[in-house]
């Protein structure tokens, strides 16, 4: 309706409208997960696999360490009466050593799984308030 030859109306720039430009950036991956698109499924499967692999690794360590003890006692009967500074080794291990090791293993697991989740959050983006 205005004259095409006329100069455009002046606009006063009051802000950088940063949010307006970011909105046009490619949609975040969270939407792919929400919509269960192939891409979203791939990311979800990746997260679950990483967590499960970590869990199974910790379990395997525990199974080998603890589950190996009775086997060791069966295969090498001498270990049943082995002593460390006058304390029988089986007692030392089962009454004491197991517990700090369990705490260290649990701590390792907590850190690693939090790291996996942090990476997932970074890739998939859009945190609350971020």
């Amino acid at each position, binding site marked *: 309706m205005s004259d095409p030859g006329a100069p455009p109306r002046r606009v006063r720039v009051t802000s950088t409208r940063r949010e307006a430009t970011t909105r046009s950036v490619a949609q975040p991956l969270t939407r792919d997960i929400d919509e269960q698109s192939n891409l979203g*499924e791939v990311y979800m499967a990746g997260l679950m696999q990483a967590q499960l692999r970590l869990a199974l690794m910790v379990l395997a360590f525990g199974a080998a360490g603890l589950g190996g003890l009775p086997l060791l006692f*069966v295969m090498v009967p001498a270990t049943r009466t082995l002593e460390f500074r006058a304390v*029988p080794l089986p007692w030392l291990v*089962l009454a004491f050593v*197991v517990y700090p090791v369990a*705490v260290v293993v*649990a*701590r390792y697991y*907590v850190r690693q799984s*939090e790291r996996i989740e942090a990476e997932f959050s970074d890739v998939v983006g859009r945190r609350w308030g971020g």
Partner: protein
Amino acid sequence: MGRLNTAYGVVAIALVCLVTLAVGSFGLRLSRTTSDFYVAGRTVTPYRNASAIGGEYLSAASFLGIAGLVYTNGLDMLWFPVGYTVGYVVLLVLVAAPLRRSGAYTLPDFAEARLESLAIRRLSTILVVGIGWLYLLPQLQGASLALEAVTGAPGWLGGLVVAVVVVANVAAGGMRSITLVQALQYWVKLTAIAVPAFVLLGAWFSDGAPGPAIARDTRWEEPLNGLAGQGHPVYATYSLLLALALGTMGLPHVLVRFYTNPDGRAARRTTLTVVALLGTFYLFPPLYGLLGRVYLPQLPDGVAADTLVLRLPMAMVSDGLGQVLAAVLAGGAFAAFLSTASGLTMSVAGVIDQDLLRRRLGRLTGEDFSAAQGFRLATVLAVVVPYVASRVVEPVGLATMVSLAFAVAASTFCPLLVLGSWWRGLSTSGAAAGLVVGGTLATAAVGITVLAGPVPGWPGALLGQPAAWSIPLAFAVSVIVSLATPGRIPRHTARTMVRLHTPEDLVLERG
């Protein structure tokens, strides 16, 4: 050796019961809404939550049972506390965060949310109540044993005292008071077992640290000497370890505690703290078993080894000090019965209330009852049944009884929780089949062991420790039936998986 001094013991036990009730009623004034009543409005910090889990978990089996077992059967019995602790590591790595993120309050809640089926919910309800009762039974038996040992009270009284205090506390205060009580109970129990242990160790050193008196050829101090007198010690050891390691996650009073964590991350950190707290506590009970071998090589006839912890101080130190220590230990033991029984009662009552009573009560009264009233009625039901059973069933030893409850939990809820958290292919039929098969097999084995007494040879070993075959069978049945019924995979499995595994700080649709 005579009876322990009655007065000190009674004072200690009464004190523990009264403090528990007082803290409980203090919590009652804080809990206002229904949500408060059940889960403390989810305002519990990981550290307090971990103390509460530890307080709830350390039961009669831990406080009295382990020492008695080590005393009687030696080294192999150390697998019990090891298993109780490792159970939390397994729970941590496999299900802690997913369970919290599922938003489930009880095991039936999780089953229904994950499998979108009411039938599974009912099955889980029955199992929760069954496992809860099986676990409550030794708590009440232990209370009777302890009160009898300390005061000479008749056998029915100790269990009754615990039952009454627990009902009063749970029915009146709900979860907030229970969380506070439980957190307190851990520290009470740790102090009650650690302080006398240090005093007794001191006495032992000043006696020149004499070695334990072990009958020849019993191989008491060596591994694999025949778990609890059963044959086939290697099988029994592995089976026990499996039951304890995988059963923890399926105990009814464990999941409830995860709901009070604000998110999955906090659930993991809480569990880590729990492992540390349990590990600290379990350093002490075996010491009592060892010192018992030194100072009390022969228990008088008719005295249960489960009362060793309470008898040891009188045998080791001067009369006055011995009585005080025995009273402290008796108080700690009662704290153990009260806290575990409270936690179990809380969760069994929650399930009875939600799934069995509420609709029926509504129909009977024309909706003329409050939610809290229904819960209170459920609480009474949750305790009365195991109390009656504890008077009828012959005691088979506290830790043995508890390990049977673990075996049933491991054969039913472990497959459900693990497959439910990690396998998208789990179908409703598969989960149901797993619960039925695992539950039936484990319960049958437990029933035969408890009711028919020891069976000789391999059948006895297999029935006494069913976990090694019943858990793999339950897993296998779940997987095979699921593969055969792909049409019964819950419709929203993908969305549920998003909820179970994504960190809460991501803005996602969680169904």
